[in-house]
């Protein structure tokens, strides 16, 4: 009982929740990226992967539920802590000199909220298929949902692609700070590793960014058709 109470009420407990859910979401983002990059292997590969997921509810649903729970907890802790943090500085300063604090670190809640909006759109776009209901009818030769063509159609719209690139950019800014913050929150930093972790977090964020945007960019550039 004490554990739960501390996790959900103390500032440090909430930070752990945020870090652990953040870590889970990060793993998803990486896994999702790997899955999506199969687009470069051609329709067969990615459609098979999609079909496999769709037809394996024992993997799909637990992950979805887990993911949803993580998102809820991540967002709840972030909003609750942000409100507490605002309250802790009742009166602001006349001269604002944010020593050492990076932009990424100061805007986590905003990058986070935009990501949330993006994910909502993204779900409507590719999962619920409500943005372009016609995607439902896309089928490949084996009668599987043709994810490949769906993506190509989806990203042919430069506005959609633009929004993706922008949101993914924010996601990666979120992660460039979030990943090293996560190690800090979980207590996995010390003098020896701190510097390395911070640098790796940035490199990873950039790689994730490049990985994701390669898809809309490739579609727009006509590399993937």
């Amino acid at each position, binding site marked *: *009982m*004490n*554990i739960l109470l*501390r*996790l959900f009420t*103390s*500032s*440090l*407990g*909430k*930070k*752990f929740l945020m870090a652990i859910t953040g870590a889970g979401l990060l793993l998803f983002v990486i896994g999702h990226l790997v899955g999506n990059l199969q687009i470069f292997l051609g329709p067969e590969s990615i459609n098979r992967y999609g079909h496999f997921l769709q037809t394996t509810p024992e993997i799909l649903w637990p992950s979805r539920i887990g993911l949803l729970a993580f998102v809820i907890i991540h967002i709840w802790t972030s909003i609750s*802590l942000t409100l*507490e*943090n*605002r*309250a*802790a*500085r*009742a*009166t*602001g*300063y*006349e*001269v*604002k*000199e*944010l*020593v*050492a*604090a*990076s932009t990424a*670190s*100061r805007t*986590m809640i905003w990058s986070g909220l935009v990501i949330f909006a993006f994910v909502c759109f993204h779900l409507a776009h590719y999962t619920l298929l409500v943005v372009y209901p016609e995607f439902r009818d896309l089928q490949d030769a084996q009668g599987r949902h043709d994810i490949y063509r769906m993506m190509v159609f989806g990203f042919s719209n430069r506005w959609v692609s633009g929004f993706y690139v922008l949101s993914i950019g924010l996601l990666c800014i979120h992660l460039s*700070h979030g990943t*090293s*913050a996560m*190690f*800090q*929150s*979980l*207590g*996995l*930093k*010390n*003098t020896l590793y*701190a510097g390395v972790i911070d640098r790796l977090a940035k490199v990873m964020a950039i790689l994730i960014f490049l990985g994701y945007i390669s898809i809309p960019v490739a579609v727009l550039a006509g590399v993937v058709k």
Partner: protein
Amino acid sequence: MNVKLRVWRQKDPQTAGRFVGYEAKNINPNMSFLEMLDVVNEDLTKRNEEPIAFDHDCREGICGMCSCVINGEPHGPEYKVATCQTYMRSFHDGETITVEPFRAKAFPPIKDLVVDRSAFDRVIQAGGFVSVSTGSAPDGNAILVPKTDADLAMDAAACIGCGACVAACKNASAMLFVAAKVSHLNLLPQGKPEKDRRVLAMVAQMDEEGFGACTVTGSCEAVCPKGISLNFIAKMNRDYFGAMLKSAR
């Protein structure tokens, strides 16, 4: 040199404060910032006005009493020094310097630049000690402490409890202070028996006082006059996590 000042004047906690402009003339660059304020105050007194109230005592960067935010930076522009060790040579002739008190909900204002930092004392009361009553100690060398541990504990113990970390943090978080204290004691064999209890109690008190949480922005470390490292926050998180998991009862 001459400088212009914009100083926060607030009569008492109830009355709203405002900035008032002053001029400090013929300032010697080797004066400390507080000595410059002394000069301004002498002038004010001679004009029968109330001098600016500011906290200070040792004037050598060890007591942690001085507490101004100078041009938006707690303890002023220099690195690893307190306000009392900030010298006027760090400013340029004719500059306008804005001086504000530390601002945080947990540090209510008292007067002008003076705030109430007793929240820190209550955090220590919650667990920032080793429960060893006078007379019950074994020989000093009975427990050997590896030099590296002792040095690291000393790094943390160097905290002067000034509160600049809180003042600088965008969340008014006291994490660096609390982490320094927790780490100092938790790192030493003498502090180990109460390790878990200490971190749980001190963090709970920290929350109770209304300090914010940490979003790892790092301003605290940058303004800390003793250069307390952010890594102590990670260490405290680790200690807290461990303690929390063991606190199932």
